[in-house]
């Protein structure tokens, strides 16, 4: 199988697996217990905090461990909203193609009376920092913009957006779930106040993540109970998962240059190869893009049938088609960059991993070409377009 769905989840690294199994077996003490066996677990936990903090240029006390990216997004946004409303600031700036962990949290706040501005992400999937600046008002309490998009892989100019937020005195959160472990991030240099990450996107385990919150930002609990995580996240810590996350992150961070050098040419080879398919279009900017992300729309076909046939060929990928989500609308990300429904249904996301080879890339290209041609062969939409009834969109 060629696993080309690393944006959905990644394989755990050997370092993470061995760290996790070792700790599950031998270090099961509760970090809150005072005897040495518990304190050993506490040491493991605090070492992981230091390791994670070092990778993003934070201080250990600024790292809060969570159950994953969604929880971190929820807590970051809710916390900023609670801080804001104390001084009557109930306006939040975000973008139209954020992850649902962000958008649904914002919807919840909108029902409480917050006003939400969703910025245009343009056809290239890039938010303009000057538009962030223009959207900030006197009552804005938070700007939340994702670091890199999970579907189309576009990377934002986070440093410029962070500078705008700093200059305007507004908290800045970034959902960096797709970026951490893949891009070099420095929260201080990039003026990031709050950042969310998820371990299983960088070869760590599922069910673990972290929230970076600049010191001085008062967090609001989502989970009440014991005094773990400085009282900001109750529940006995997932020590093996957290330590495995730290092991995976250290390894991923050390390999960023090597991985990027390997992935970018293969990514671009696939982008060029799929571009030969008539009436297709790359989604998202070609240059400011995650090293492993390829996302295309193919006119005249539907994405789920494309995925099922690629699965038969041993390729695991994903699509923004409505049929793959169980809803009637295709991906909100594709709609946000201006793709109309008709072509958004025919999308394909390939998120390649470090183990990919040039041969794999060529096999992916030839397989996608074959399947798209096959499906177009009995698509009434394609027949009409070829016959000149209606005009091609792509």
């Amino acid at each position, binding site marked *: 199988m060629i696993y080309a769905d690393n944006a959905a989840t990644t394989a755990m690294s050997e370092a993470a697996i061995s760290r996790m199994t070792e700790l599950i077996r031998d270090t099961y003490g509760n970090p809150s217990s005072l005897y040495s066996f518990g304190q050993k677990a506490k040491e493991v936990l605090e070492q992981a905090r230091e390791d994670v903090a070092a990778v993003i240029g934070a201080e250990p006390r600024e790292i809060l461990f969570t159950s994953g990216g969604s929880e971190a997004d929820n807590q970051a946004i809710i916390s900023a909203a609670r801080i804001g409303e104390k001084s009557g600031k109930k306006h939040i700036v975000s973008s139209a193609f954020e992850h649902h962990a962000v958008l649904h949290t914002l919807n919840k706040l909108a029902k409480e009376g917050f006003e939400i501005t969703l910025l245009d992400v343009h056809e290239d999937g890039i938010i303009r920092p000057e538009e962030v600046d223009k959207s900030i008002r006197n009552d804005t309490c938070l700007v939340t913009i994702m670091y890199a998009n999970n579907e189309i892989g576009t990377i934002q100019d986070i440093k410029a957006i962070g500078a705008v937020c700093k200059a305007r005195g507004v908290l800045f959160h970034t959902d960096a779930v797709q970026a951490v472990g893949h891009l070099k991030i420095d929260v201080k240099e990039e003026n990031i106040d709050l950042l969310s990450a998820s371990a299983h996107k960088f070869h760590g385990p599922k069910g673990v993540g972290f929230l970076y919150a600049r010191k001085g930002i008062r967090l609001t609990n989502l989970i009440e109970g014991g005094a773990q995580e400085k009282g900001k996240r109750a529940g006995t810590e997932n020590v093996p998962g957290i330590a495995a996350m730290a092991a995976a992150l250290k390894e991923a961070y050390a390999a960023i240059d090597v991985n990027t050098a390997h992935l970018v040419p293969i990514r671009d080879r696939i982008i060029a190869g799929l571009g030969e398919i008539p009436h297709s279009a790359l989604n998202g900017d070609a240059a400011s893009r995650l090293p492993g992300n390829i996302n295309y729309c193919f006119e005249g076909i*539907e994405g*789920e*049938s494309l995925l*099922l046939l690629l699965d038969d060929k041993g390729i695991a990928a994903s699509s923004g088609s409505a*049929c793959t989500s169980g809803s009637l609308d295709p991906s909100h990300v594709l709609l946000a960059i201006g793709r109309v429904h008709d072509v958004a249904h025919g999308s394909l996301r390939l998120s390649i991993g470090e183990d990919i080879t040039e041969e794999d890339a060529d096999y992916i290209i030839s397989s996608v070409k074959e399947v798209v041609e096959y499906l177009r062969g009995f698509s*009434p*939409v394609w*027949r009409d377009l070829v016959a000149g009834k209606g005009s091609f969109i792509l």
Partner: protein
Amino acid sequence: MALYSEKVMDHFRHPRNVGVIEDADGVGEVGNAKCGDIMKMYLKIEDGIVVDVKFETFGCGSAIASSSMATELIKGKPVEEARKLTNKAVAEALDGLPDYKMHCSVLAQEAIEAALEDYESKK
């Protein structure tokens, strides 16, 4: 658990009666590209019997499988019987569809109804 039954996957991978009938007696097209599903049915009818049927579908796996199964269920059958084809019969013949995919079988029923209406209107 697999997303679809083996029957659905069989009809999806090897769709029956795919194509176009140039001199069809009835043609029906339902759905729209905006929703991600379009089915087109072509019928050849002789002496009140559906002697041939072909389909073209733009859609997901279950849409393609539903179209394929629907053509099998009416091929060689009297028009009266074809008219009575229900989406339930299509879904059952496929050993079931996930709930949120039932509309695919509805589309298949509607495509055949539309093709039969076209046939009636031309008579």
